[in-house]
């Protein structure tokens, strides 16, 4: 049996000064950051008119609203809502597809291994960034000015804002592709287009397909809200019912959105596995 090990606390303290006697700056860094974060929070709450009385009044109002939402009831407008939901799904599907079709060639221009020159790549990337920096709702407002109110403006809004996101994601996928296939095609005497078609695309397409499916799913969510500014779909109904305080219809619409999003999640998850296999997704 081994003897119990005698520990001399003082000796250990002397041997590991970093653990036992940390300098004050290191010990104070985390609390200081927490205090600073909290100070900004308090400043923000004051600056944004958060008064406890207003908060409590609002909460009781919210309680009333929730009570009035029960039970969810579409009234006589169920067909209208179903049509609006179909419109929303159409907007998501069409917008995402359009964005993907247009983003694919542009993403080639933004990929380092296709276009080595920084001069061409830089502006393409900044343009994609700018498009992404503007929210879908803002694009919807712009398109409403162009093609008028309605779901078509929604399709174009989703297409444009996703174009920015896809351009970036696709170009990253292309940059991550293996260069050996491309070199193989080049060695066989293929042109630049052959290199892309037979060297890059077979590697990149499954990744891109996964991303497009994922975006269709997330765009179903975005498409539900662009109706709030008048670009069609179920958001239009939702905003109208909220404005006229028809709370039972509101809760029914929210439930519809939840169910639709869950269904799309489920279907696109299955499709994604079918296209690119179970391993690639995780």
């Amino acid at each position: 049996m081994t003897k119990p090990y005698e520990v001399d606390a003082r000796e250990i303290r002397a041997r590991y000064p970093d653990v036992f006697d940390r300098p004050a700056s290191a010990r104070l860094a985390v609390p200081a950051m927490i205090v600073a974060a909290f100070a900004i929070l308090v400043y923000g709450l004051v600056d944004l008119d958060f008064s406890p009385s207003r908060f409590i009044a609002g909460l009781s109002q919210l309680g009333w609203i929730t009570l009035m939402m029960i039970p969810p009831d579409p009234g006589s407008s169920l067909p209208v809502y179903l049509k609006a939901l179909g419109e929303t799904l159409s907007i998501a599907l069409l917008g995402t597809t359009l964005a993907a079709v247009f983003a694919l060639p542009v993403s080639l221009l933004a990929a380092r291994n296709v276009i080595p020159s920084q001069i061409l790549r830089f502006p393409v990337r900044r343009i994609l960034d700018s498009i992404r920096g503007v929210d879908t709702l803002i694009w919807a407002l712009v398109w409403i000015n162009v093609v008028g109110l309605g779901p078509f403006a929604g399709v174009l809004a989703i297409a444009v804002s996703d174009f920015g996101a896809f351009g970036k994601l696709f170009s990253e996928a292309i940059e991550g592709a293996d260069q050996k296939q491309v070199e193989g095609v080049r060695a066989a005497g293929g042109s630049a287009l052959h290199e892309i078609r037979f060297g890059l695309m077979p590697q990149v397409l499954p990744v891109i397909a996964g991303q497009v499916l994922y975006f269709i799913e997330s765009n179903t969510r975005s498409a539900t809200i662009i109706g709030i500014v008048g670009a069609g779909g179920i958001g239009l109904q939702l905003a109208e019912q909220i404005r006229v305080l028809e709370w039972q219809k509101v809760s029914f619409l929210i439930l519809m959105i939840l169910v639709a999003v869950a269904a799309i999640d489920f279907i696109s998850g299955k499709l994604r596995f079918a296209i690119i296999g179970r391993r690639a997704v995780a």
Partner: protein
Amino acid sequence: MTTAVSILPEQQLAALNAAYRQAVSRRRLRLLLGAGVFAAALVLAAIGAEVNLRTLFTYFGNFISYFDRILTLDNGQRVWTDVGEWLWGWRKWLKMLGETLLISYVGTLIGATFAFCLNFFAAENTSPSPWLRFVVRRLLEFARTVPGIVFALVFVIAFGLGPMAGVLAIAIHSTGALGKLFSEIVENADMKPVEGIRSTGASWLSCMRFAIVPQVTAGYASYALLRFEINVREASVMGFVGAGGIGQELVVAIRKFYYSDVSAILLTIIVTVFIIDITTGWLRGRLFGKEART
């Protein structure tokens, strides 16, 4: 040196070729079927979304000329020839932008705090009881599936117009999104420290505090910063429904056709988003090293 290529006898080759062709044609058929279904879905969607190519082509000029118009001052000159005139409202806009940033900061912090409190109940390995886990998970799911701006619409009616509704909407949405991400980090945490601490007779709370939290804080902070970035974008449109921030100015400018103001406000938003992206990216890189950036 020449290499001899062995050539199979005719019969064997024919069988192999036939098998190959069959495999290829089956794949092609499946691909074609898939493409057909997809095309049909697209056509259906085009009808559903009232796509009208003629409208698009007739008015596509409008889209181009819209940018032409927002880049033109009232006196007919390009905006960049007279920056002072273009950005005439910069004091007001910067103030509104500050409000937008504050809305997203407060919203993210509140959301992250709630997510921090809730995620231990939602994670599979730390949740004290299955029914609690189920309830918390559904709650988080609800909070992140309902779009933030829908919450904002409801809150504007409950709490009145102003940034309070925006903050609460962003806080709820962030709680849902971060709660899920946080609980996934916890699920990946090493459980050996928990066993060690439980073996000393510690309560569930101490287990979380001393075994899990030290492992996961870096991941939490990284996700919270990412969320802040996203929330800045979201807060920039909260004003569309009256929930405060720069969006209010923007929607007024767009609706009232103050063209050069639209481009000026858009510019300030885009620049702000860039700066936030770059700063948080830099901060994440510094705090957690390169690998935490994904």
